[in-house]
Structure formats: C-alpha cells, structure tokens
C-alpha cells in the first residue's frame, strides 16, 4: 500500500516537472533581437547584494540615469534605451543564469558594463557570447585576458588592464621613489596577480609583499598587514586591492602611526567609499593614486559637471563617486556606439562600428581608446595624482600627465592624447 502511494507521488512529481518546463514556446524571429522601432534593450549583471556589492551596486543605476537623460532628449535615432539590471551576487553561477535570462527571456540586444572577472569568463564561455555574436560592451574589469580577440571576439574591455596599471605605476615609482624601501599589498587573484606580472615585467622589486585573499579583508587582517609593513620599514606602499581592503589598511595604519607614502591602485582608490569606510581625511590627504578618469569631484571638468547634473536629476542625487562616474561614462560610450552602428541596428553592425569608429568616441577618459579591427583594448593609460583634503585627486606638479603602455612588453610612454570635446549638452550626435 505504501509502495503504491509512493509511486503515485513519484508520478505526480514527474508531472510537475514536465509542466514546469512546458510553460512557454519560442517567439518567431524578427529583424534583430532586442531592437524595435521604439526601443533598444540592453542588459547588465552586477552584484546588487552580498559582500562584494558595496560601491559596485551604484553602477547600474548611474548608467540608467544617463540613458533616461538621453531618452528624454530623443533617444538614439528615436529609439529609447532600456537597461535591465540583474543581480548576480558576484557568483559565476548566478551570472550565467541571469545572463541566460537576459538573452533568452528578456531578449536583450547587447550586454553592457557587466562586472567581475570570474563571472564574466564563465558567462562568455558558457553562454557562448562570441559564437552567437552577442555584443558584450565595456565590461567593468581590467583583467588583461579579455583583450584576447580569439576567445572574446565580441567583448570590448573598457578599463586599462591591471597589467598596464602596474607597468605604468612601476615607472612612476622608479622616477619618483628610487632607492626607497617598497611594500606591496595585493589581492591574491586574477586582479592582483595580473598586476604582479606587470610589476615583474617592468623590473620593479618590492621589499615586502603581502598577498591577501578576497573576502578576508577586515580591520584585524589589516592590522597584520600593517605590522608586517612596519617591520619591513616600507617607505612607499602600493595597495592593489578592493576598496573594502584599502579602507581598513589606511585606517589601521593611521592608528598605528605608520605613515608611508601610499600609492593606491585605481580599483580601491575611490575616495568617497574610503571616507565612508571611516578613513580619516588626514590619512587620505597626500596619498597618491592612478586614474584614467578625471576626479569625480573636479567640477571644472565638463564631463564631470554634466554627469553631476544628470545624477541630480535622474539618480536621486546619490553621492557622486567614481562608481557613478564610471557608470555614466560607460553609458555615454554605449550611446555613441549605438549611434555609430546606424539606424539599421544589428549586432554585427554594432561590433563593426566600435572597431572602426570607437577610438574616436567622446568620453571623460583622459587616456586614449584603442578599439580597432585588430585591438579590443579600451583605455590604455593612467595619470598620477595626489588626494587633497577634500578627497579629490589633484594632479602632481605639472598638471595631468597621462602615460600609456600595452598588454605585452611595450615601453611606458608619455601620451600627448587630447580627448575629444564633450558633445553639446553631453548628448552624442556622432554617426
């Protein structure tokens, strides 16, 4: 009797399983996925909740704010942009699942600004972005591997790679701090080790190196870093970690009255977040850092000024930091890419447009863009500055000097690149 019941339940479960999968059938194909006469659908996966979310969770909203601004001013050839954000909690499993949803259910035209190296490697491979020709624009990571066109043919990195950053930083240190005792704290994963390779390529050796594991950063971990750095008498310390690691490091070092010259990598150098983490202004003042964008507090910059206005009007006036700046800058580049692809928007056309015209796009970036038919690299340079008491990064004496390099053995050179002027009202009019 019991056996019979069990079998019945098994059948019931099987029926549920079958019914659960039989919900929808596919739609007829049309001109181009995600594009209609009035709308262009884009998608992004990023951590909106979880330990890795702080800071990054602002990027999607910032992009959306800029798109709304463009939509209110005519959109892209009359089409309005819709950005669908999906929370991947910084897990590759969820990133793949959510990207599949974006592509198969929401039927987005392209992915833009997706975040996280491991996540994005999984997505590109499992979803088959390159094979299916799905454009994957301006990803929010500096892992140098994504510039490999053979594997990631439809992916367009935006940030200079961590490898480039390290090479440029090595030159900066050699020029300014020759003979000093050097320390390095780095995140022991793709991001940090990419940088370590860059330092090695540039021939820079550190006297104290401290790798840490992503997720272990806290005030007590930072105390152990500080003891090691202080014991090694490091005079110049490079920090290649996320903001939630940089914050405790600076705060703890200040408490221990250990004050080397800090050089912060671009990833962990967002002043607003650092201040929110309890880093006293006095500690941040005088620290040096690298960036490829203007300082988010620099209202004399036309791009920053416009983005701040958009932020006030369309983004609930959230604290305007580097994450918001990156989001809006990415959105502005996206709009130009969509325009460059023409009225008859296709995925192939979009990729070709970025390859042929992308290097001329207007953006807040102070380093050149390098997209071409042979290169997938976006920005390839950095400038160095010093944080002032308000947390803004100010150029060292002599103004903003951008240095550029490549992902291989190329030298670090001073760039004389001059970025294009912002289109009127920050509304792209390219074609």
């Amino acid at each position, binding site marked *: 009797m019991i056996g019979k019941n069990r079998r019945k339940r098994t059948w019931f*479960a099987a029926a549920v399983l079958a019914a659960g*999968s039989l919900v929808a059938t596919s739609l007829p194909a049309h001109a181009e996925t995600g594009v209609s006469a009035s709308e262009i659908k884009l998608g992004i996966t990023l951590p*909106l*909740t979880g330990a890795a979310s702080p800071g990054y969770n602002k990027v999607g909203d910032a992009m959306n704010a800029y798109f709304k601004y463009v939509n209110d001013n005519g959109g892209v050839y009359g089409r309005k942009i819709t950005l669908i954000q999906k929370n991947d909690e910084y897990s590759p499993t969820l990133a793949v699942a959510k990207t599949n949803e974006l592509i198969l259910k929401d039927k987005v035209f392209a992915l833009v600004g997706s975040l996280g190296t491991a996540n994005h490697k999984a997505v590109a491979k499992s979803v088959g972005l390159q094979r299916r020709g799905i454009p994957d624009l301006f990803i929010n990571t500096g892992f140098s591997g994504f510039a490999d066109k053979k594997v990631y043919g439809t992916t367009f990195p935006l940030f200079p790679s961590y490898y480039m950053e390290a090479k440029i930083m090595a030159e900066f240190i050699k020029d300014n701090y020759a003979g000093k005792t050097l320390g390095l704290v780095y995140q022991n994963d793709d991001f940090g080790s990419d940088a370590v390779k860059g330092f090695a390529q540039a021939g820079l050796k550190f006297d104290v190196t401290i790798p840490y594991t992503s997720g272990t950063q806290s005030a007590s971990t930072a105390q152990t870093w500080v003891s090691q750095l202080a014991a090694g008498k490091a005079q110049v310390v490079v920090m290649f970690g996320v903001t939630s690691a940089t914050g405790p490091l600076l705060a703890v070092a200040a408490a221990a009255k250990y004050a080397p010259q800090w050089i912060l990598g671009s990833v962990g150098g967002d002043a607003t977040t650092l201040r929110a983490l309890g880093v006293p202004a006095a500690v941040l003042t005088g620290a040096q850092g690298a960036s490829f964008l203007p300082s988010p507090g620099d209202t004399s910059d036309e791009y920053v000024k416009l983005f701040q206005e958009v932020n006030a009007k369309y983004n609930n006036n959230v604290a305007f930091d580097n994450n918001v700046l990156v989001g809006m800058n990415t959105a502005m580049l996206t709009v130009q890419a969509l325009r460059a692809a023409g009225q008859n928007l296709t995925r192939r056309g979009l990729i070709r447009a970025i390859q042929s015209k992308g290097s001329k796009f207007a953006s807040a970036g102070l380093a050149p863009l390098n997209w071409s038919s042979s290169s997938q690299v976006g920005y390839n340079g950095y400038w160095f500055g010093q944080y002032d008491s308000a947390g803004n990064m100010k150029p060292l004496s002599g103004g903003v000097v951008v240095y550029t390099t490549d992902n291989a053995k190329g030298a670090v050179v001073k760039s004389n690149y001059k970025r294009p002027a912002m289109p009127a009202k920050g509304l792209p009019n390219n074609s």
Partner: protein
Amino acid sequence: MRKRLLFFILLGWVLLIVGDRVDELRVYQGAQISMYAIALSSIVLLTGYSGQVSLGNGAMMAVGGYAAALTLNNLQTPIWFAFLMSILASAIFGALLGASAARLSGPYLAGTTLALAVGLPALANQFGFLGGEQGILFDVGFPPERFGEEFSQYKWFFWIATFIALISLFITSNILHSRFGRTWRAIRGNSLAAELAGVHSARMKVLAFTISSAIAGLAGAVLAMTISLVSPGAYTLSLSFALVTGAVLAGISSLPGVMLGAVILVAIPEFADVVAHRLGDSEKVITHLPGLIVSVLLILSVIFTPNGPGENLRKHRKKKSAH
C-alpha cells in the same frame, strides 16, 4: 527494481520530448533543475534518511567540480571519466569528513560543516593549480555534429545533466530501498535501539556521509558544466543554504520530492522577480524581495510542514481512513 527502472526510462523519454518542445531558456533551466535534483538527493540521503544535518554541501560540490575540471583539463580524458573522477574524489573526501564528524550530533555537525563550507572554497586561492578566485574553465565541448545544426549548447547541457540525474537518482533510490536505507532510518529513529539490534551505527553514518558526498560531488561537476567553470564563487555558502531550503520545501525524506524541490529552486527567483516588479519599480524592492520571499517560504514550511508536503497529505489520508 524492474518497475523503478522502467519508470526512469519512461521519465527520460518524456523529458527528451519535452526538451524538444520548449524554448531555449526552459531547456537551460531544465539542466539546472537536473543539477539541483542530484544535489538535493544527496541531502535527502544524508539528512532525511541517516538523520545528519550538513550545511556543507556546497563544499562537497566544490570538491567534485574541481576534481572534474582538473581531470578534464590536465588529462584530456573523455567527459564521462571526468564525471566519474568527481564522484570518486568527493566520496573519498566525504569518507574522511564522515569519519571525523559523523559521531557529532545535530547542531555540532551543522556548525562544523558550515565552517567547512566557508573555508574550503577559499583554499583555491592558496594553491595556484586551482586557479584562484577566477577559477578554471570546465569545457565539455560542443554537441556532436551528428545531432545537427539546430542542436544548441543548452540542449547539450540539458541532455548530459538529465542523463546523469536519471542514472544518479535511479541508483540512489535503489540504495534507499535496500537494507542500507532501512538501517539508516532505524538509526535516525532510535540509534540506541538500532545498536542493540546489532547495527554498527557509526559505520553506517560514515557510509551515508560517503555516498551523500559522492552524489553532491557529481552535482558539483554538473554545475561546473552548466557554467563552464569552477571557481570559489560558484560554491558559496548561499548555495549550501539554497540546497537545504530546497530539501526542506520538497520534504526532507522523500526522494521523488527532490524533483519538485529542484523545480522550486529554479522557479522561485523568477517568481520573486515578477512579484517585485508588480510591487513597484523601486530598485531596493527588486533587489531584496527575492531573498525575503525565499526566507519566508522556508520558515513557513519548516514550521508547518517540517517533513515536507507529502507528510501532511499522508497524515490527512490516515485521518480519513480512520473514520
């Protein structure tokens, strides 16, 4: 036994047809459902039958996933061998863990396995060959050409995952209906009485741990296949928690329930998304509501149907027949 075999073959045939009729997203979700079904069956065996609570299933899955990926990448073996290695590696791991932990009772074991679930994936950062935070690729390749142009990668994942799930569930159901299954239930019910009846309860518990871990490892390899990657971020604490949730929602001691539980695990986020969008466009609501719904469901089900919906039905029926 023969009837069960017939049932699984029939189920496979139905799924094969269903897989051809639904759209790509459902096919992909079908692969996920199969993966969850395997993972949940490992919890049913361990918790539902042998009465041990483990929160470390994510860790077991990680062992299986990494074993499969390392085998495939370093030895260039066929796919099936990689899956076999995932079972073997996680079984050995489970036996070791079981030997040291199976003597522990409820909350101790739960806490110990929780610490494991937090600690183990971080090891990938310590050893270079495990690929660190960005993980290593696990590529089962494109579907064979003879299936034709139309045969998508999703369907290939779905076929492999479902095939593995059917075999794994068939074997598990045979184990649970065997002498072992009965002994585990006896230990769970009253371990002292079972000991008196001549059952070596500690050894049986280690055995349960080993088999459960082997199944979880297999699920971990299937998960790695569907995302083409193994990395610490793929086997988080939230995965372990989600699996426990699924097991409880489906009825912790019912093997057929795992299919329902797996469907629920895949369906809830989608359902929650829809509800969140109905409730308003606030980004905060959309972000946090899914977690809230899952938690409330979990709490309600553990309070009101702690042994699964099936248990309540059975009770109901018993009451009726008594009248």
